[in-house]
């Protein structure tokens, strides 16, 4: 059984239909990526899964439970955590306070502490800056903080929305390596929404191509990487 499954999901902003019956599935332990151009509905898909933008029809199933009408904060407690688009860290809170907010729903302090150390091991830069206000970090560091903050909830599935946004190529490369590491070492399932199709497909097992609010293609990432259409439209080759 898939860990997360979308069945015919439609989402509207007022009268405008942003998602036109999307179906996809993510197996436990996989990295699955959703690629697409600007305005294809990538972020909407993510927000629909999290319950922040409620869906109008269809089903979002997490571990066998329909979560489409459950409020966002409860979904987080069910083991789904997201790194929102544009990082959205809390600029006036310190790095440590940001991370503590990530663990908001947990109360076992020693386990949180262990996770904190694990996260600092993953991103040593954050450990150096633990008492610095989040807003004073560089773009790459903020992205690291956003990922760490989501990890602090100990999710079973981590949703990432364009982690490469506005970052230098070398840093993007780093971030993607770490995403892969999180998947391998922590056995966290990852659902990655990306515009940088090349990078995303290289670390993913499976990919979906989203166009105008509908899934246009679904295949293993090796196949998508060599697919003529994808190469032309999304890889710029």
């Amino acid at each position, binding site marked *: 059984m898939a860990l997360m499954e979308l069945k015919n999901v439609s989402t509207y902003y007022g009268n405008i239909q942003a998602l036109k019956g999307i179906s996809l599935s993510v197996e436990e332990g996989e990295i699955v990526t959703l690629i697409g151009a600007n305005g294809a509905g990538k972020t909407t898909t993510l927000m629909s899964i*999290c319950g*922040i933008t409620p869906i109008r029809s269809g089903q979002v199933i997490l571990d066998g439970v329909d979560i489409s009408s459950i*409020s*966002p*904060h*409860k*979904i*987080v*407690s*069910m*083991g789904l*955590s*997201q*790194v*929102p688009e544009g990082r*959205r*860290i*809390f*600029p*006036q*809170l*310190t790095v*440590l*306070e940001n991370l*503590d*907010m*990530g663990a*908001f*729903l*947990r*109360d*076992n*302090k*020693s*386990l*949180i*502490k262990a996770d*904190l150390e694990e996260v600092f091991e993953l991103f040593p830069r954050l450990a150096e800056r633990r*008492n610095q206000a989040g807003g004073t970090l560089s773009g790459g560091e903020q992205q690291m903080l956003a990922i760490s*903050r*989501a990890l602090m*909830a*100990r999710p079973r599935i981590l949703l990432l929305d364009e982690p490469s946004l506005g970052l230098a190529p070398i840093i993007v490369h780093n971030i993607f390596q770490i995403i892969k590491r999180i998947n391998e070492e922590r056995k966290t399932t990852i659902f990655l929404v990306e515009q940088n199709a090349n990078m995303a497909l290289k670390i993913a097992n499976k990919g979906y191509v989203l166009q105008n609010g509908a899934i246009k293609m679904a295949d293993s990432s090796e196949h998508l990487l060599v697919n003529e259409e994808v190469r032309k439209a999304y890889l710029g080759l």
Partner: protein
Amino acid sequence: MIHKNLAKELAASALQMVWFIVLLFPFLVMKVSVTAGTALVRFRWGSLPAIAIVSFIASFAWGRALEWNSHRGDKEQKRTPLTPIKEAIAAALARKPIRRVVLLVLLAAVAVYPFALGMYHTNIMITALIYVILALGLNIVVGLGGLLNLGYAAFFAVGAYTYGLLWKFVGPSFVSAGIATGWLFWIALPIAGTIAVVFGILLSLPVLRLRGDYLAIITLAFGEIVRMVLQNSGPVTGGATGISLIPRPWLLGLKLPPKQAATYIYYIVIVLVILTIFVVRRIEDSRVGRALEAMREDEIACEAMGIDLVRNKLSTFALGAFWAGIAGVVLAAQTTYINPDSFTLWESIMVLMAIVIGGTGSIPGAIGGALLLKLLPEYFRPLAQYRILIYGVAMIVIIIFKPDGLFPRNRKKYTFDAQATEPQAGEAQK
């Protein structure tokens, strides 16, 4: 180089002087007197040089001040003659025995205040301290939660009227049963707090999805609605005439003469202020407090972290309203008379101004701001007619030179302490 700059600045000041002369000419030079249907214009040319000199000096000084302000971050200018004194004070306060002595002296000063200065000053101080409670309460909503609330006076009114109405409708049965009416104050305190909380939740329900300007408008309307309702339900609230002869609290079943009663209320309000500071500090340092701050910074990120925004907003408004309700009861007891005019939009703005001047989100800021705004006008009565003007100028000066407020918040460094609590068996969400 310096001369060139100076000449430039002088020229700019001269230009502003001309501008001021033109601007103020109709007000300060021309004087129109209307007698028997004909208007007579008199020109007071004598005041022209005064305008010129004052505006020239003022604009030159303003330019220098702005110049100084823009270089304030520079290292060599960071050290002012005051710096060593400040450092010495900070070093002294950092030592525990000295801090204890300072605290004791402060406490002693607070304790002897009503005896040393008499009833007039005690009453002024009570009013100021009521504002301190209000400012601390609003600080939770605006400073921590980032929700601009312009209807805060409504909760203040709810508190005051809870006591007033209790007196009006329950008081007579107290009198006929022979129970001291002074007890009503103590009964009113928790009831008023509770009712204010209920009103806080009522207000927060329609504004759950609003932020910024919209939130400000709705809360403003809420404040006015509460005042209008109080004003127009005459049979119950006494309408515009309000409720009078509200009893002051009695000391152990003993009715006190006004002077002693003022002293007694002073001590009560001091205890309430200390209680408020204690509670607000606890909130600020807790995870709930940080969640409120997180909500101020980014609502979507909050939802993604599993923070329940609805509960967060409800508790913010409720917590803020509670202290306003308590402050309202004290106000009713102190003045023994309440009417809707004491709870206008102006009151809400005053409290907000106290927070902004003191430093948004800072506890010393809320206290300092409220004391300044309430005490200074009392002691500068002769300038009363310029009060609004002075407020305006003060606000501009503070926003430019001290954007974080007079007593900005010194964020406590958050340290993660795993030893603080015993590890619990099994985690909630695992």
